[in-house]
């Protein structure tokens, strides 16, 4: 009898655990024009993503990062596919089956420690069945800040191999220091940016990498408060990551949209203060911050 009671008691707990599980997605196509049917031109039928008689186009991309870099590619702001850079740091790919129209493809590079670069975008226009070849994507370095035994701050990440890396630290849009470094053969770099020198304030660190006349940059921020360094890196501390899942994506955008022009609750005020611009409301400034830190 005890076993029966135990099983009945445990069962609902298992169900609750299951309720937070991921959901399966199934796409159905009900692509039937019903309203305001266009005139005689065009027409055709819809099967999957192949619609009308309009030819589908392709987009060829290529770029440079570091050896073994994992590059996430976004199509119009949504995660689309991944590629891995070869030993020379080069990557390329082809996306076909694109309907005619304007697209924005985004590129973010992740290193083996899961630290990432800023988003780089490339806009293209598909006008026919041809191949659109994008210009070479120069991906910026990945970056993170590590506090070394409470004594100093190390800025570290991966860039292109043997490249010059310039680090600019600014506060309130004023440059306060500039440091140059060189990445190793595998792209790894580490720079001591000090610690004792920083007064209580909010700091932006820009990591620039130049190659063949193109400059790519990644930004990271930290603040000093009560003699403590607060790093804006890591889960729940990533800027604009409102639901604290380590990504800035559709869910975060939806949450911000929900609060747009609404009075914030105390709980969300804390989130707005910590992860957006902290003015106690969700407005266009917050959406701008979110668009910058977007990871898809």
């Amino acid at each position, binding site marked *: 009898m005890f076993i029966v009671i135990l*099983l009945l008691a445990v069962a609902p707990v298992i169900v609750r655990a299951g309720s937070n599980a991921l959901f399966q997605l199934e796409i159905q196509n*009900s692509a039937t024009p019903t309203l305001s049917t266009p005139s005689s031109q065009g027409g055709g039928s819809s099967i999957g993503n192949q*619609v009308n008689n309009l030819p589908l186009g392709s987009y060829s991309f290529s770029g440079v990062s570091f050896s073994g870099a994992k590059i996430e590619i976004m199509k119009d702001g949504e995660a689309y596919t991944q590629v891995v850079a070869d030993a020379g740091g080069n990557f390329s790919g082809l996306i076909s089956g694109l309907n005619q129209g304007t697209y*924005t493809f985004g590129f973010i590079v992740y290193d083996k420690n899961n630290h990432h670069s800023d988003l780089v975008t490339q806009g293209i226009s598909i006008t026919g069945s041809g191949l659109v070849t994008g210009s070479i994507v120069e991906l910026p370095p990945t970056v993170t800040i590590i506090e070394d035994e409470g004594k100093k701050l190390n800025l570290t990440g991966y860039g292109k191999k043997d490249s010059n890396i310039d680090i600019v630290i600014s506060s309130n849009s004023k440059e306060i220091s500039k440091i140059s470094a060189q990445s190793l053969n595998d792209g790894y770099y580490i720079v001591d940016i000090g610690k004792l020198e920083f007064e209580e304030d909010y700091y932006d660190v820009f990591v620039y990498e130049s190659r063949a006349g193109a400059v790519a940059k990644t930004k990271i921020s930290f603040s000093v408060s009560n003699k403590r360094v607060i790093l804006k890196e890591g889960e729940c501390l990533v800027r604009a990551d409102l639901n604290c899942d380590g990504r800035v994506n559709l869910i975060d*955008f939806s949450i911000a949209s929900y609060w747009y022009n609404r009075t914030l609750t105390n709980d969300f005020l804390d989130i707005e203060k910590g992860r957006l611009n902290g003015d106690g409301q969700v407005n266009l400034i917050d959406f701008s911050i979110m*668009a910058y830190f977007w990871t898809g």
Partner: protein
Amino acid sequence: MKIYWIIIIFVFALYIPSQVRAVAGDPQLFFTKKGTIQNVKNGERFSVDLVLSSSTPINVVNGIVDISGPAEVEQIITGSSIISQWIEPVQIRKDISTIPFSGVVFGGYAGDIGQVFTLVLKSKNPGEILVTVKNTQGYINDGNGTYIALKSAPLKINVTSEDSHIVSPVIQDTTPPEEFSPEVYRDSVLTENKWLVSFITQDKGSGIERYMVKEGSGDFVDAASPYVLKSDPINEEITVRAIDRLGNMRDAVVTPLDSKEQNPYIFLLFVAGLLLVSLTWRNKTKIKK
């Protein structure tokens, strides 16, 4: 005399470059009409594009479109827009004559001809049409949400007294919106742990006009992302329908893992039931003995 000329040249040199910088560097949000002729006939359907031009990467644009003169808005096309997601969707509203809009460009846009949207207009009488975008705001893609002013100037279009015989629509689109993947989740801060569904897709033809959501066997209702679900998606299938501006539709169905997730429960209930029957039978047997 020499000093006089030096002063003139110096003042000229200071003045001209600042003017050039103002024209070349300042971001602009403005309407433009295809073609070089700014005249249309009476009753003619024509289109004007709202375009962003900026050398500084901009990731949020905002404004209000105001149209004065003998014209009416017939259609808004967002299919070729640089906007990744609309904060305030651009749409024709019956109650107001202006069209407010705001949108986000993930990663920012820097270029000369970033199309924000297209208005399809129809002239009603001879006269002058002014298409203006007011209250323009832009934000730089710098991670701090830095404001930047967007310059704008009205677009003037003259409507001649000659009647138009052009009746065909400006845009044709029979392509449904692109496939998409709604996300179902719970958020304790947002909605006291209620279930929400978030969704976004693109339509490269006329652009997305609206979304609808259906819970289980219920009816489709108009919805905006995020949509707070009334039912428990553990048991109910959630369908999100994206509809473009010419009525083409795409459905995405979120099916919960209810069968897999509830299997342990069903299995445990089954085992518990078997044990209960077994124990009851055993007790009855003992009592009989």
